[in-house]
């Protein structure tokens, strides 16, 4: 089966020449229809710029320099701006971390949820969209839709605002929902509610979700598969359960050891050093300066993503062909 979204060799750079910041530097990632895929990484690894590249919403100094992003077989990166406008908010929708900046403070919430319906011609007017908007608000478990319809964003709590943003994102029944840190600014109980809602959207509405997060536990909660990103590339992908049970890449192993567990208290084993500056990446494997298993060969060339098990890939010389797993 062809993937709903199939990204190949995506590279997004800022600036040019020797000092170019290689924010995304060759990412291959596929999302199947109806699945939830998690993209995990620390700040500066390029995960948000990856999402923005797909949506063609990069800051002015950023540009995609290579790669393809096939959505239903058509390359998003080759589309005209008008074609992208027709897709954004109808076929592909984006939910960002801070709902207060996603929402217009001067417009009523109901009008904003109905905006994509009007913009994409599903409804002729906001009045015509009202019924569908109220229905969406109910589906998002907003407590009193009629009242919230008339309210402004500042009158809603953080969790309700994020529900309103998700309602707007789902208005045109997109087949792909990209969520970039959708719960990071929220309290833990509110976060649990939003994650539950995303699960419902996947199960009931059949939308595929690309969930971008720094929090492995959040991804684990929702996603069947995950990809771990480091310094602009993927270092490991596979079924979430398998990767978390037995991570293959030294970075994934280190990352999971850093995550504090609720049920056990143990010695913290931090990864030494810091994330490299994307304008001055190390040679060879980008993780080698922090890797506990580094060998001289790691400095020479970057290993490819190699199979490390059923549906799993890892980018490490440990798993290059000819070596045993």
């Amino acid at each position, binding site marked *: 089966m062809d993937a709903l979204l199939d990204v190949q060799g995506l590279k997004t750079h800022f600036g040019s020449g020797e000092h170019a910041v290689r924010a995304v530097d060759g990412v291959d990632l596929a999302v199947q229809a109806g699945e939830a895929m998690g993209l995990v990484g*620390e700040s500066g690894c390029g995960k948000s710029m990856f999402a923005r590249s797909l949506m063609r919403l990069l800051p002015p100094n950023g540009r995609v320099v290579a790669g393809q992003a096939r959505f239903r077989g058509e390359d998003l990166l080759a589309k005209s701006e008008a074609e992208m406008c027709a897709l954004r908010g109808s076929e592909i929708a984006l939910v960002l971390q801070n709902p207060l900046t996603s929402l217009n403070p001067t417009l009523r919430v109901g009008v904003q949820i109905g905006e994509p319906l009007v913009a994409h011609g599903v409804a002729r007017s906001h009045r015509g969209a009202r019924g569908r908007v109220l229905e969406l608000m109910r589906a998002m478990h907003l407590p009193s839709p009629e009242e919230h319809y008339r309210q402004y964003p500042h009158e809603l709590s953080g969790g309700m605002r994020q529900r309103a943003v998700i309602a707007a994102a789902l208005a045109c029944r997109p087949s792909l929902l990209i969520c970039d840190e959708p719960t990071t600014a929220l*309290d*833990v109980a509110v976060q649990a509610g939003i994650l539950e809602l995303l699960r419902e959207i996947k199960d009931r509405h059949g939308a595929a979700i690309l969930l971008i997060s*720094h929090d492995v*536990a959040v991804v684990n909660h929702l996603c069947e598969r995950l990809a771990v990103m480091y310094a602009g590339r993927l270092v490991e992908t596979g079924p979430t359960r398998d990767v978390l049970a037995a991570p293959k890449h030294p970075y994934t192993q280190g990352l999971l050891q850093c995550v504090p567990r*609720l*049920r056990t208290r143990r010695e*913290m084993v931090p990864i030494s050093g*810091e994330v490299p500056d994307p304008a001055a990446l190390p040679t060879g494997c980008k993780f080698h300066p922090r890797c506990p298993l580094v060998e001289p060969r790691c400095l020479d060339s970057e290993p490819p993503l190699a199979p490390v098990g059923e549906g799993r890939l890892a980018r490490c010389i440990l798993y290059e062909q000819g070596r045993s797993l």
Partner: protein
Amino acid sequence: MSHPLVEAMHVTKEFELGGGAFGRVFARRRRRLLAVDDVSLAIHQGETLGLVGESGSGKSTLARLLLRLIRPTDGGVCFDGQDISGLGERALRPLRRGMQIIFQNPYASLNPRQSVRQILSLPLRLHFKMTERERRDRLDELLRQVGLSPDHAGRYPHQLSGGMRQRVAIARALAVRPEFIICDEPVSALDVSIQAQILALLQRLQQEFHLTYLFISHDLAVVRQLADRIAVMQRGKVVEIGSAEQVIDRPQHPYTQMLLASAPELP
């Protein structure tokens, strides 16, 4: 059991909302917010008390009351057996050496126009009589203790990464050789690999200098790693307090149970 180093006795803090122009003109419109509501707790020498709760539960206000950065509306605060709730700034000053605080965002708590050397020198100047040479040595020692090198002394906050900035904030707290440090969400803004570095550093420093911590976080799993005991706050009240194992494994209060059930977990 050792005597409490820090103690809150029925401490209450009420804020007046709408204190702006309208609040003053329309006095009736003033609303009151009970940020901390009759909280009593004790923190013992050498222990780490974890304080968890959602945003707005009063954690940070309680921290500021314990340090007497703000005055309680009612109730008392003791430090090392002395009631400090009524003391003036002058009387507090010698006590301030014993208590320090590390904030969530070191970018906001470090002066951007001062080098690391200037930032760390100030507490040394304020609290100790030292020669220039002694101060330089102490500065190098502080930087080493938090995992930085003497080369970092000349840098400014914007030239440091988030993790390094937090190390500077920790060094500044250590400079006065305190007994008690409040860590107010010290790792919430950091990436998980850096978070683990800072938590490990805080653990090491506690052992080395026999520090007493109040460790505040919204993240139960983070608190679990450091705390001997955990207090849970909801709407200004401490609703549950007990050993870390007890609170996490056998929570009694429905609010604690809800927090634990909401936290996404790893296998």
